[in-house]
């Protein structure tokens, strides 16, 4: 006789599992990674390989020591590694990439308890760490589409562990390109006042621009995921809409002082961040209204950091701040399950707990971590009366 399972609704089980969602995200990232390798050659390939490898090894170690849920087969660490590699410069020293991958999984995910328990996007935690630790290396970009890129490493990639990378400027001079060619469009605009064409930024194909993979391709891959309902279209729309609206307003007031909104949208990592990083299910709100607020906040912060701070790029910190605000956003946007209150909000006492763990565990039967740390803790009553 089989076991009878008694549990509350919902009783219909969907086809979606954590593994399936993650695997689809990996598939959609493959074209983006291939384009990145096409742009920067063997260095980009090695970077993706090393960073993803470091993420997987760290994940394996944390799962093995029993402090985190999930396993390697759920592909979440693979996504973290690929995304992290895409946000780093192509000539980023490989050993620093390994450090970034380790910190991303260890600090961003493992210490929180693994998949679904992390507060911040792990890839961005890793990137924030290496940005603070190695500020020069992470700002050093090299031009794309260099001749011979499939046979020759960018020299800074192959720095020995703990050692300083080789100077990119001298290498570029030997290739008859000036050092300025290595600056990203955002840095060029911020520090030199040179504006790149929005159309060129959209395809990443014009000349030797030091940019990431084509935003158009990322949007196409994101559209596939959104169409299959593996990510929520509201978040990228809200981020791009928010950033575009703020940039457009500022452009209206000071066209000479601020760049046009399309430059804002297509430069830097905004598209990659909006489509792949901010939509991380564990770190973004689950309520529809919350998604709009969350996305709008990230868009606004991105523009503010880009225009008014010393940093040329602000997507990373904007998303991390958005992640931190997620629990609060969810709390103020609880839907009313039964009827509406006087002012259209939820009636008091009528809300139920809504958090990612509630939904994903119910849906996928994900394994929760065993709390081994507290296994031997004495029971409260034992502690109180040791002699009786």
């Amino acid at each position, binding site marked *: 006789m089989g076991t009878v399972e008694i549990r509350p609704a919902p009783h219909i089980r969907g086809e979606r599992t954590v593994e399936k969602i993650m695997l689809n995200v990996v598939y959609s990232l493959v074209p983006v990674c291939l384009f990145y390798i096409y742009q920067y050659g063997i260095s980009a390939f090695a970077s993706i390989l090393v960073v993803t490898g470091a993420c997987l090894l760290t994940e394996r170690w944390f799962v093995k020591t029993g402090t985190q849920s999930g396993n390697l087969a759920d592909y979440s660490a693979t996504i973290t590694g690929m995304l992290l590699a895409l946000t780093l410069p192509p000539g980023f020293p490989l050993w620093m990439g390994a450090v970034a991958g380790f910190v991303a999984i260890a600090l961003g995910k493992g210490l929180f308890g693994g998949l679904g328990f992390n507060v911040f996007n792990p890839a961005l935690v890793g990137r924030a760490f290496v940005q*603070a630790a190695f500020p020069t290396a992470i700002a050093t970009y090299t031009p794309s589409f260099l001749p011979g890129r499939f046979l020759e490493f960018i020299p800074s990639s192959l720095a020995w562990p703990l050692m*300083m*990378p080789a100077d990119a400027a001298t290498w570029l001079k030997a290739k008859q390109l000036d050092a300025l060619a290595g600056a990203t469009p955002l840095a060029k605009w911020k520090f030199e006042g040179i504006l790149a064409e929005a159309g060129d930024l959209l395809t990443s194909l014009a000349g030797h621009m030091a940019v990431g993979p084509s935003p158009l391709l990322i949007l196409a891959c994101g559209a596939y995921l959104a169409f299959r309902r593996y990510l929520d279209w509201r978040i990228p729309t809200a981020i791009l809409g928010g950033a575009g609206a703020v940039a457009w307003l500022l452009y209206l007031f000071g066209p000479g002082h601020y760049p046009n909104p399309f430059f804002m949208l297509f430069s830097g990592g905004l598209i990659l961040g909006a489509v792949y990083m901010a939509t991380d299910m564990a770190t973004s709100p689950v309520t529809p209204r919350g998604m709009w607020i969350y996305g709008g906040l990230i868009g606004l912060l991105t523009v503010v950091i880009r225009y008014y701070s010393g940093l040329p790029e602000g997507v990373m910190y904007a998303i991390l701040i958005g992640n931190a605000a997620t629990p609060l956003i969810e709390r103020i946007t609880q839907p009313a399950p039964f009827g509406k209150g006087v002012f259209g909000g939820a009636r008091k006492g009528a809300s139920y707990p809504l958090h990612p763990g509630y939904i994903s565990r119910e849906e996928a039967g994900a394994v929760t971590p065993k709390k081994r740390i507290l296994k031997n803790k004495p029971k409260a009553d034992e502690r109180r009366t040791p002699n009786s």
Partner: protein
Amino acid sequence: MSSATTTRGWDEFMEGIWKQNPVFVMVLGMCPTLAVTVSAINAISMGIATTFVLIASCGLVSLMRRIVPKEVRIATYIVIIATFVTAVDYFIQAISLALYDALGAFIQLIVVNCIILGRAEAHASKTPPLPAMVNAAGMGAGFTIGLLALGVVREILGNGTLFGLSLFGAGFQPWVIMVLPPGGFFVLGTWLLFFAWRARRKQSAEVTQHA
């Protein structure tokens, strides 16, 4: 009998180094722990300065434990501690101005280091002078070891040096974050994690032995 007293004295001393280590177990005195451990030499000087104040003030508090009225004991302890801190402050200024500048306000802030006041209140005020001072010496040594554990890691990664000696040659890539405040938190957290992991492993080994 003499061996029994030595063991007790040894236990008093080792309490601060291992079982009740101020940095890694009691997590006291975090302000200097995070702020001055940028290099190993700063860490060790801070540790020694604190140890001296700790031993001297615990000895004096212990001597005066029967005369001080209960109502004003904290104020008395603070005056005693502040006296020794002032002495240490002038002493460091006299021997090395560079070190004095590197440690900055944290020398004067030894006054409010909760390890010292905590030891005076919890231990020295109830114990005869000699064991109190031995215990204080152990606590000071434990604090110094804790600071050194942070300082060594932060100096090696943040600067590529140990006690000012270059370890990796000229091409070293410094980890800027390690000499900034976040680096202190990261290294302290990693050490705490290491000790927690050790304790957990020991505990589970004991459980399997009993079972």
